[in-house]
């Protein structure tokens, strides 16, 4: 029972990160109908920059802020320079271009930093508090929950309560009409990519200290888990992404805890197959429509 409680909290902690990362995928999917397969690599790139700054200045928080700011910049740059020019007549094009970006980013990171794991410290202790003899949560887990909750709340306010959010939703929903009504649709797309990449970067900063450390491929598995989370929730549903993230986190935690850590990626694959074949639109999707 102790173990189950511990694994549950651990799973929720992981799941919160997957939720944030899945949310970033959903943001871009809703705006452009592209699944950003480069998001993991982009997050790793900004994490490298963040940790470089943190090591140079001695301040983790400065590095954290720089990583997120770097995410904003990188996301905007990727949209402006590359994604804007992708032809959308085939859904494969966006995927292939994003995969090209993955290779570029991983290649450049490897050239600059090398292909060995680099230690990535956490700002808080990762030792769990004990309540009544049961290890529950660490300070770092609390920080993860707080950060993810803040991001989800901010995004919710942005999209439902502000003018900019309305414009972003309008440009995603009906680009031509929005343009007629004076919305800067291109600018909204850039903003959407920048926000998504920043959320992805934050998720990267939150997940990398809990794994083996910084590595150009550090986010490959995280990307697959988060993609699964987004698919579980439905690629169109931000609420679904958060719920899906928590579900995948719990699943991974139980599987690694009871069956061994190496089984976890296989469990993700199985979940992905089951959801895709059973409910491809996701558990939280309202529309069942899918392009033929």
């Amino acid at each position, binding site marked *: 029972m102790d173990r189950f409680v511990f694994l549950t909290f651990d799973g929720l902690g992981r799941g919160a990160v997957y939720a944030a990362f899945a949310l970033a995928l959903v943001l871009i999917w809703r705006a452009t109908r592209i699944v950003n*397969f480069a998001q993991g690599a982009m997050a790793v790139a900004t994490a490298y920059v963040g940790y470089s700054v943190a090591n140079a200045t001695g301040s983790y928080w400065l590095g954290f802020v720089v990583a997120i700011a770097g995410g904003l910049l990188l996301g905007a740059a990727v949209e402006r320079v590359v994604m804007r020019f992708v032809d959308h007549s085939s859904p494969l094009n966006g995927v*292939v271009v994003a995969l090209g*970006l*993955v*290779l570029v980013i991983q290649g450049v990171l490897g050239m600059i930093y090398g292909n060995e794991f680099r230690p990535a410290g956490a700002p808080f202790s990762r030792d769990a508090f004990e309540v009544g003899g049961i290890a529950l949560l660490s300070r770092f887990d609390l920080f993860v929950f707080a950060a993810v909750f803040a991001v989800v709340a901010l995004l919710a306010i942005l999209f439902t309560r502000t003018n900019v959010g309305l414009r972003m939703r309008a440009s995603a929903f009906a680009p031509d009409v929005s343009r007629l009504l004076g919305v800067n649709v291109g600018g909204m797309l850039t903003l959407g990519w920048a926000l998504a990449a920043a959320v992805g970067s934050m998720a990267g900063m939150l997940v990398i200290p809990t794994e083996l450390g910084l590595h150009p*491929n550090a986010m490959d598995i995280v990307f697959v888990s988060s993609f699964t989370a987004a698919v579980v929730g439905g690629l169109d549903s931000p609420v679904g992404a958060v719920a899906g993230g928590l579900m995948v986190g719990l699943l991974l935690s139980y599987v690694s805890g009871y069956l061994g850590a190496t089984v976890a990626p296989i469990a993700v694959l199985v979940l992905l197959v089951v959801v895709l074949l059973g409910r491809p639109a996701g558990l939280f999707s309202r529309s069942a429509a899918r392009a033929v």
Partner: protein
Amino acid sequence: MSATLAPAVRAGRRMPETRRRTRHLLWTVAAAVLIVALTYVLPPFRNYQLATVGAYLCVTAGLTVLTGLNGQLSLGHGALMATGAYTVALLQERLAGQGQWTLLVSVVAAIAVTTVAGGIVGLAAARLRGPYLAGLTLAVAVVVPAITSTFDTIFNSDQGLSVYVDPPPPALGATFPYERWQAWLTWTGALLTMLVLATLIRGRFGRSLRAVRDDEAAARIAGVNVARTQVLAFVVSAACAGLGGALFAVLAQSVSPGAFPLSLSLFLVMAIVIGGLGSLAGAVWGAVLLVALPALTHSVTDSINVSPAVAQRLEGNLPLALFGVTLVVVMLAAPGGIASLKPRRRKA
């Protein structure tokens, strides 16, 4: 209509079936003669590279049928190659020392096992489109190291297995270079693959593939069984990937998850996109590029004066970055997207 094996096909569809087959056979024989001649001219290391091109060609040719002709993007072909490679490793270990024929048995078994694996993935894939399919196959590619670690008594986790390969048959002479033998082995597989695929895609099956890619609804109305065609495309492509993986195992004489990373699957996609989607000739160019570009960056990093550590970093990662840039540029410069990347339609 894509112009595969361009000259042989230029005469068009009016060419009778038997004559087309003869043409394909003639081309295969000509290519075989060329390869054999090359293996006698080239130094051993070049022969090894030639052999690697042959192994890659099996995979890129199969992938171009799936992605270029049928419109299904697979990021999991690295995993299918691993399936073939591990099958060969396990069987060769059991059959070691019983003669040359064991290799043929192992390779055929590798193709069979990979075909089954590809059929399973294909059954799921036939229900999925675009990014969903890409995500699923990506997960398949990423899961390889996890599988080798979970079943480490069979696959020996990260260390992998060694592959027993017999020396060249004594009938070829005692001093027959090993690299030449390797090139002969892989190109036998590659040319057979090309011959079979060229014949397949010129016939009814090829027409169904293209019809499904261009418009599923129209294909269905015309009586094409869409799901069956998609699964078959995956099966054919997986068989080729299995053969390619088996040949890689024979070449490297070892298999490990590190030999089949995610980037390998991405490289394969890049190779067929740059080579020209949907054309077997493009698959040849892609396979050549996969060997030539890393070799080129190796000689570049050798020639510039940097410390060994930096040179090692550059050597491993420069090809990655170059492949990525090429992929992005090609995709952006072809405004019609993937479909227009295939050679232009002939008028009439």
